[in-house]
């Protein structure tokens, strides 16, 4: 058993209990994180799909808008660009920021809205090309809306990506580092405890054997003595009482300690 992949602990029963508790905690945490990661992934996939849709949509919308601009230029003349640019004071389309919550991850949300009210652009191109300008305006409005939507999706995508990475890292860390380490530690502690127990058992056996040997010797001695006594006139002598050095078997306490995964 490698000493690398375990916690540096003293192999005692108390530590074992603690480790077991930690293992249980880690397992639970792993399950929870896994669930979160799954939720995030689901959302992530969905976002991805939406982004692809939005991008494709944006491609065609931008194409349409640019073409609408060309049409306006065709109808209203080249200089219309400058006229429009010089007549703008404030933006008509504005973006509002917001927060969204997905499985505990905060995602920034953007929302575009058009300021209501008449704009003074309405009269631009009065002499020629006004209609094309209006349709160009509409096309670009929808393009801007799409752009904001796409920006929204992209930001959400990036944030989610980050969150998902962190969560996955945690899950993997729990699964591949913390849990094996705890398990290793536990098995190490168990192994050490077993070792201790076997030593104890062996010692006990040894003691018993020694005792038996001694008893046998004593018995033999006693028999000899008795024989001698018998021979000598039957001097009754009690065998010597096993002294306070003899203990009840030490393993009994361990045996009575109920444990599911202990096989013996």
């Amino acid at each position, binding site marked *: 058993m490698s000493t690398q992949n375990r916690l540096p602990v003293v192999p005692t029963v108390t530590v074992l209990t603690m480790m077991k508790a930690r293992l249980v905690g880690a397992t639970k945490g792993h399950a929870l994180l896994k669930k979160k990661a799954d939720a995030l992934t689901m959302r992530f996939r969905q976002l991805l799909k939406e982004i692809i849709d939005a991008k494709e949509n944006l491609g065609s919308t931008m*194409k349409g808008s640019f073409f609408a601009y060309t049409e306006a230029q065709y109808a209203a003349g080249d200089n219309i660009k400058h006229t429009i640019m010089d007549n703008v004071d404030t933006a008509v389309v504005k973006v509002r920021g917001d927060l969204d919550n997905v499985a505990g991850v905060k995602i920034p949300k953007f929302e575009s809205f058009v300021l209501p009210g008449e704009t003074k652009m*309405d009269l631009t191109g009065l002499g020629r090309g006004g*209609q094309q300008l209006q349709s160009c305006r509409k096309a670009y409005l929808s393009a801007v809306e799409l752009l904001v939507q796409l920006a929204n999706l992209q930001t959400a995508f990036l944030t989610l990506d980050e969150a998902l990475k962190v969560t996955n890292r945690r899950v993997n860390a729990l699964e591949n580092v913390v849990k094996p380490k705890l398990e290793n530690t536990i098995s190490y502690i168990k192994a050490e405890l077993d070792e201790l127990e076997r030593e104890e058992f062996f010692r006990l056996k040894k003691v018993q054997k020694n005792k038996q040997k001694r008893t046998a010797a004593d018995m033999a001695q006693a028999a000899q003595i008795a024989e001698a006594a018998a021979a000598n006139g039957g001097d009754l002598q009690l065998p010597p009482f096993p002294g306070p050095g003899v203990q009840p078997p030490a393993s009994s306490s361990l045996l009575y300690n109920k444990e599911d995964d202990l096989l013996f």
Partner: protein
Amino acid sequence: MYGFEMMSFNIKDGFLEAIVRGHRTGLLTVADYNNLAQCETLDDIKLNLTSTDYSQYLANEASPIYTATIVEKCTQKLVNDWNYMRSQADETLATFMDYCTYGHMIDNVVLIVTGTLHERDVQELLDKCHPLGMFDSIATLAVAQNMRELYRLVLVDTPLAPYFSENLTHEDLDEMNIEIMRNTLYKAYLDDFAAYCRKLGGTTAEIMGDLLAFETDRRALNITLNSIGTELTREDRKKLYSNFGLLYPHGHNELAMAEDFDQIRSAMEKVPAYSGIFSKLGYGESQMLDKLLYEEEVKKCVDCYEQQFHYGVFYAYMKMREQEIRNIMWISECVAQDQKGRISDGIVYLF
């Protein structure tokens, strides 16, 4: 009208008339447009254009070429031709040619004025001006801080001064919407131009009367069409119509009252010259109208070359060249934006 122009016209203007007719030969034909429409890239378009009159203007352009560059170079060609003819012209013709460019001049003045009021860089503004509408003191337009000062210091010396002084009050200068001002000026300009052509008399008056009547009617139509649903009142709208043209005055009254496209249509269809245009349009659609009007204008311009000894050819040349530049811009944009299916929607074939 008296037939005497034939004998006296060439004394002063024969040379230039021949020159402008020569330039007309240089306009792109249907075959050229078909070639251009086959192009896959802007470089192809450039290559095709180098086989036309534009060759020396486009030949030296570096390879990644843009629509804006093409349009700019083509405009340069028109401007060079125009300035050459303008410098050769005799007084009456020179005045006539100046009149032709006043439209651009109005646009430039409006551009500079709005730019100045929004504190933009003068040089930048000057670069954006249409080169045909330049006049000497245009750069000084930027010194003024408000419209009234602008008029007093600068505009009073320009050919546009009478249009300002006769149509706008001081209060208007400060308060009027710039677009309405532009159209008011344009109306005054068209009236003045028409009066000048009438004064010239003869074939010029006849031909230019026709062309300008079309121009002013188209403006009236556009103004009406574009002002539906805006804050422009009927009276204001009516003030923007010129005082001549086929629609004047009854058609203008009807147009001023019109509230939707069908009402405009019924007003326009009472004039036989325009009922033909509208009969090509389906009911309720106004999108194709612009193109039909352009086509009509080009047709009139081409027709005016059928007569000799009049000034209308110069005006028609300018209009046709501008239409051609628009066509080239349209084709280039369609090619650049990969919308080749729509090329035919924008081209107005000249011949």
